């Protein structure tokens, strides 16, 4: 099963949020240029912990600047896929590559956003956002300025000094988003980041995500079990189930709330739900 032929990205959308990304940037050309997305490739990969492969035969190629959503039932290996791309888990077979080079460990250019409780509870929201900047060795004053700016951008200026357990789940996820983007990663890997939020907060977070990704040009792999979320955010949606990557489909009019009733979108939604067996 090869899906790498469908890698044409749909960056020119009506929302106009994904400008300046990946107009034919081939493997390797984006390397070193800050603010550009990176190409992530899995070739015939088997993923999982050494004693238990969760998914096998995965072929997927994420173009620079693309948003790929991965949808599937819980326990199907979505998180494993992300952890492999992050470099936290080596593939059991096949290869995981970034811009054509094998991924051999975690790195600052591939940030990971977790479902919940990944903020360090002893650090204020601002200190959490400063952390990737500290890792990169930025001087203190600059760290503080940048972290403050990011928190403002996600609407948390007033909560900057609060500890994570003092703010709501939605605010914690915004802080996590700010922390992930503060390090200027070239890829953002998101593991059901809005999964624990109520529907209303979640829609707001999706809009915020689209807004803050604007101009970063980062490649995004977004894992979710919510089909509607996957179809709203993704340029393409990958379906994972029964230990395999079953399909990768282009999404018509991504990140457009009004496209919900688009016949092409509803047809795709029906297809996705059918193939997920729900």
């Amino acid at each position: 099963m090869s899906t790498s032929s469908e890698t044409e990205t749909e960056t020119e959308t009506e929302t106009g949020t994904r400008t300046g990304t990946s107009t034919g940037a081939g493997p390797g050309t984006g390397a070193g240029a800050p603010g550009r997305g990176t190409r992530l490739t899995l070739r015939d990969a088997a993923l999982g912990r050494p004693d238990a492969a969760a998914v096998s035969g995965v072929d997927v190629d994420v173009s620079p600047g693309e948003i790929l959503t991965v949808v599937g039932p819980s326990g199907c290996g979505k998180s494993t896929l992300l952890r492999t791309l992050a470099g936290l888990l080596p593939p059991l077979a096949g290869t995981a590559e970034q811009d054509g080079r094998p991924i051999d460990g975690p790195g600052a250019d591939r940030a990971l956003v977790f479902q919940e409780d990944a903020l360090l509870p002893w650090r204020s929201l601002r200190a959490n956002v400063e952390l990737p900047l500290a890792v990169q060795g930025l001087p203190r004053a600059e760290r503080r300025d940048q972290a403050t700016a990011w928190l403002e951008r996600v609407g948390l200026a007033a909560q900057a000094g609060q500890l994570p357990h003092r703010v709501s789940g939605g605010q914690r996820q915004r802080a996590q988003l700010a922390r992930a983007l503060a390090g200027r990663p070239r890829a953002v890997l998101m593991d059901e980041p809005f999964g624990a939020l109520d529907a209303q907060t979640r829609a707001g977070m999706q809009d915020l995500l689209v807004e803050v990704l604007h101009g970063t040009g980062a490649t995004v792999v977004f894992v979710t079990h919510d089909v509607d979320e996957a179809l709203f955010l993704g340029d393409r949606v990958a379906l994972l189930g029964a230990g395999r990557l079953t399909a990768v489909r282009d999404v018509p009019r991504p990140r457009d709330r009004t496209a919900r009733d688009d016949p092409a979108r509803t047809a795709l939604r029906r297809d996705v739900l059918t193939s997920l067996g729900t």
Partner: protein
Amino acid sequence: MNRSARYALRIASLAVALGLWQLLTSQDIDLWLRFSQFPTVTDVAHTFADRLAGPDYWTDLTDSLTRILSGFLLAAVLGVATGVLVARSRLAEDLLGPVLEVVRPIPAIALVPVAILLFPSNEQGIVFITCTAAFFPVLVSTRHAVRALTPVWEEAVRTMGGGRWRVLGSVVLPGALPGVFGGLSVGIGVSWICVISAEMISGQYGVGYRTWQDYTVVDYPGVFVGMVTIGVLGWLTSTAVELLGRRLTRWLPRTAQGPAARPKSARSGAAPPPAATAGRKDSIRTRPEEARDEHLVRD
């Protein structure tokens, strides 16, 4: 209950215990338990006052404190370092684990012969015994605390490009701190047991040595002065450890003291106190998203 009422209650608890002691001993009560030979509170108080005026008491005090502090601090550093090492490295666990597990059940005070053989001076031997006593509780609780850390904290730092030392400094040590302080609290207690016992066996000067000397010359009020001194010192040192621990782990979520306490303190960092309520209303009005999240804040 307010603060002063709680302090009054604590003082009352001590006063009742002393009163009971005075009553039993001054009346020479012999009801199977024999209090007739027991010194009264006033006897002990008089001896205490005499001792406080003399020079020996203060020498004993500083000697014991020097011994326990050096032993305990050494144990804290070694215990945390070894605990982290054993919890984080399989090699260290295989190399050190068996030795530690065999030595651990041996009571530190049983190491007196070892200390006498190993160390040129009594002083070092006592510090060694105190250190060994506190080492194991610190080691064990550090090991557990490090193993119980949430894996996503480490994964988050590693995906920021953080290496081994960054993970150690930013995740492992601060995250394990609440558990480490559990071990330190236990450790300071057993340190006192061992420093006093070691002084009784082999010390020169020190509260334990003095207490034993008083016993051998049948100076019972003197024995009680020693015991009270040990009790007060032990209480002060463990309170110091406790307070330091609470200060360093202030980030831990705690239950609210009263129904109104938490919302107030949750807001105090966000808006200046005088305008706190007004500021809060404003933020709700101008930021509909903030207001939406508001209902989640205090669940």
